[in-house]
């Protein structure tokens, strides 16, 4: 079996190329130590496996996620490296290529997005490039499938001959060359390290590669460690960078050919003139996201969800009840399946259309190149709370679903900023909380429904921003936010790429419905159908009622006087959309109008508002807690989000009710 590692800068079309080259792919867990998924695919009709490595700018990583590639090269030896480059930005792409070519493994470089380059009026002589870099250079355009068949043929061939001349050797300044030579000779002689690898290790170590320096420390590579202070004092890293850049400039100058220019680049500039306008950029951003939400929660997603809900609560539930009655199933089992599983798991599954439409919109924004612009126009606002523009997107997405919002935080470079964004994401009012707001405002604020709901949304944002500032101080975030965002060329989104992106993002939600939500539903059903004396027919004797009654004294200071809302809140941990249906069951009401009537009699406007604030901020749902755990790689942060949510929500609801009561 041949392993090809796909490696390259971000925005080179690497993922599109991976999808085009492989006919099937799977996620085989995470890369060691980080939450970046390991994606492996197979080239059709071959035993060649392609490993998709995260997009990086350099082998010297800034973030933990970027270290995946260097660690991979240190530990694994792929049979071939396919270095994907953006043909239009070859200068900076080759900086990474040089680092890879110095390793001495077989490498094929592909100039991807070759059409963009041609449209800009340039082309490169591939033979000149190949001769200078010492490896085959191909051209592709993954979006239009140009050059892919030829590339596939190259990849499944025997690659021993690819780098027959060995690693690329640049003419570094004399002192640097001498230092590299001395170190690699000692590494080969004293540590029995393979000469090419020793040479690469020496260059990377001198070039201040953090991962390689850690590797040297772990393996006690004294020839390198003993000279570290000398290398740094002589600023060898700067000299290495300058030599590489000068080599690239000479190579590209020799290989550049002029073509007739076209207007494509102008088009991106023209769109950017409007989209990134200093004044209109922000309103356009708001408009784009408003459109995204309208599509997801109004025009497309919700109507499909409503139909799905009708289907589940109507024909499917009826059919299940009839079937179970016919086969003579026990009433308890019938209740578990119909009232527990179909209602509970189904209640979450009906959100799939909304979530998938939202993910499709996000994929379109990513694929078109707009996402980078959105980060740019919101950066100034985020800078005030110690975050950067890249953190704004996850928070906005969190309005749809906190789970996806937290996942979108992966693009943030600094681990602490990413952690802060993850921790504040649950405070953004997700769409699942809207049904319960609707019930309460209809019951107690009939004339000011929109204002009250809007105030809740803004309170969520305010709490999130305040907490971000608080965490910024608490975590002693000293390092400056690295906010350097590339603005790629605009592309017309391609349907299959959008589908890939949507499915990759959304499939986790379906998986959760079948696992954690399924389990949680059974638990909630058990709590509301069993009491201390076993199976109960009246919910008043159930564990859920008992629990609500026990917790009632704690909730009284925030204005709650009945146990039912408390038990309903407990079910909300499963999924927020369950709160309203639980209240329906717990208050013994048959329809929404009846429940609104009961609520208006059980709450005052003040206690209702306090409860809404509590619902906004209290424990995140199971799916969100699970995502926090997987994204931070720690159960500690998941537990913390539960505790902090409870403390903040209780504190605020308590203050609102108590101060409000004093003023009334």
């Amino acid at each position: 079996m041949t392993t090809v590692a796909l490696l390259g800068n971000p925005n080179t079309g690497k993922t599109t190329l991976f999808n085009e080259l492989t006919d099937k792919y799977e996620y085989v867990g995470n890369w060691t130590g980080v939450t970046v998924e390991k994606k492996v695919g197979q080239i059709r009709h071959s035993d060649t496996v392609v490993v998709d490595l995260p997009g990086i700018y350099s082998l010297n990583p800034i973030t933990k996620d970027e270290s995946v590639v260097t660690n991979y090269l240190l530990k694994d030896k792929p049979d071939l490296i396919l270095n994907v480059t953006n043909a239009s930005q070859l200068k900076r792409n080759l900086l990474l290529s040089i680092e890879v070519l110095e390793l001495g493994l077989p490498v094929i470089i592909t100039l991807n997005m070759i059409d963009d380059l041609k449209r800009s009026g340039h082309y490169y002589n591939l033979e000149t490039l190949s001769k200078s870099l010492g490896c085959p250079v191909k051209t592709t355009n993954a979006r239009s499938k140009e050059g892919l068949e030829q590339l596939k043929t190259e990849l499944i061939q025997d690659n021993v001959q690819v780098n027959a001349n060995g690693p690329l050797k640049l003419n570094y300044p004399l002192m640097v060359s001498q230092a590299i030579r001395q170190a690699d000779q000692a590494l080969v002689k004293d540590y029995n390290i393979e000469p090419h690898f020793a040479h690469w290790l020496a260059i990377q170590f001198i070039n201040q590669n953090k991962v390689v320096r850690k590797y040297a420390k772990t393996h006690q590579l004294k020839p390198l460690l003993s000279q570290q202070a000398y290398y740094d004092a002589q600023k060898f890293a700067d000299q290495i960078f300058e030599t590489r850049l000068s080599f690239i400039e000479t190579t590209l100058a020799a290989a550049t050919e002029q073509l007739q220019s076209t207007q494509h680049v102008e088009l991106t500039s023209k769109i950017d003139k409007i989209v990134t306008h200093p004044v209109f950029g922000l309103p356009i951003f708001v408009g784009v996201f408003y459109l995204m939400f309208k599509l997801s929660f109004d025009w497309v997603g919700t109507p499909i969800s409503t139909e799905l809900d009708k289907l589940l609560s109507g024909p499917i539930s009826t059919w299940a009840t009839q079937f179970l009655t016919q086969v003579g199933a026990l009433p308890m089992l019938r209740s578990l399946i119909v009232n527990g599983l179909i209602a509970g798991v189904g209640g979450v599954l009906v959100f799939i259309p909304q979530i998938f439409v939202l993910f499709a919109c996000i994929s379109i924004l990513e694929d078109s190149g707009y996402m980078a612009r959105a980060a740019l126009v919101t950066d100034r606002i985020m800078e005030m709370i110690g975050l950067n523009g890249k953190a704004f997107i996850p928070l906005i997405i969190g309005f749809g679903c906190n789970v996806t919002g937290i996942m979108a935080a992966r693009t943030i470079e600094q681990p602490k900023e990413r952690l802060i964004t993850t921790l504040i994401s649950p405070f953004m009012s997700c769409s699942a909380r809207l049904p319960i707001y609707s019930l309460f405002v209809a019951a107690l604020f009939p004339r000011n429904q929109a204002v009250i709901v809007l105030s809740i949304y803004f309170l969520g944002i305010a709490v999130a921003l305040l907490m971000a500032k608080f965490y910024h101080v608490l975590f002693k975030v000293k390092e400056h936010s690295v906010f350097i965002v590339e603005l790629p060329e605009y592309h017309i989104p391609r349907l299959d790429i959008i589908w890939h992106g949507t499915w990759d993002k959304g499939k986790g939600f379906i998986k959760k419905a079948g696992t954690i939500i399924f389990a949680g539903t059974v638990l909630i059903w058990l709590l509301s159908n069993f009491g201390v004396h076993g199976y109960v027919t009246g919910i008043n004797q159930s564990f859920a009622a008992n629990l609500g009654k026990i917790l009632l004294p704690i909730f009284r200071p925030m204005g709650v006087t009945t146990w039912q809302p408390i038990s309903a809140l407990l079910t909300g941990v499963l999924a927020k959309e369950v709160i309203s249906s639980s209240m329906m069951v717990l208050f013994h009401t048959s329809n929404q109008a009846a429940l609104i009537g009961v609520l208006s009699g059980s709450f005052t406007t003040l206690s209702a508002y306090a409860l809404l604030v509590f619902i906004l901020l209290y424990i995140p749902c199971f799916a969100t807690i699970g995502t926090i755990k997987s994204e931070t790689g720690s159960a500690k942060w998941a537990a913390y989000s539960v505790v902090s949510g409870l403390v903040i929500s209780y504190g605020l609801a308590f203050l609102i009710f108590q101060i409000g009561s004093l003023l009334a």
Partner: protein
Amino acid sequence: MRKFVIQQFTGLDDSTVQRLHSLGLQTGSPFWAVRFYPFHGPVIIQADDQRIGIRYTVFHTLIGG
């Protein structure tokens, strides 16, 4: 668009310098300022046919401020 030349990287943190280097920028590199956002917000610069958004403080340092 106004043309500038990178005067220095001194004063920038290591990660920012490293990322700018990775994008092919070095002392002496010419670049164009495409857009300035209000209240010292980010600046869009263009260098080597690529457009990059950077913070105003970084821009200010690069031009020798």
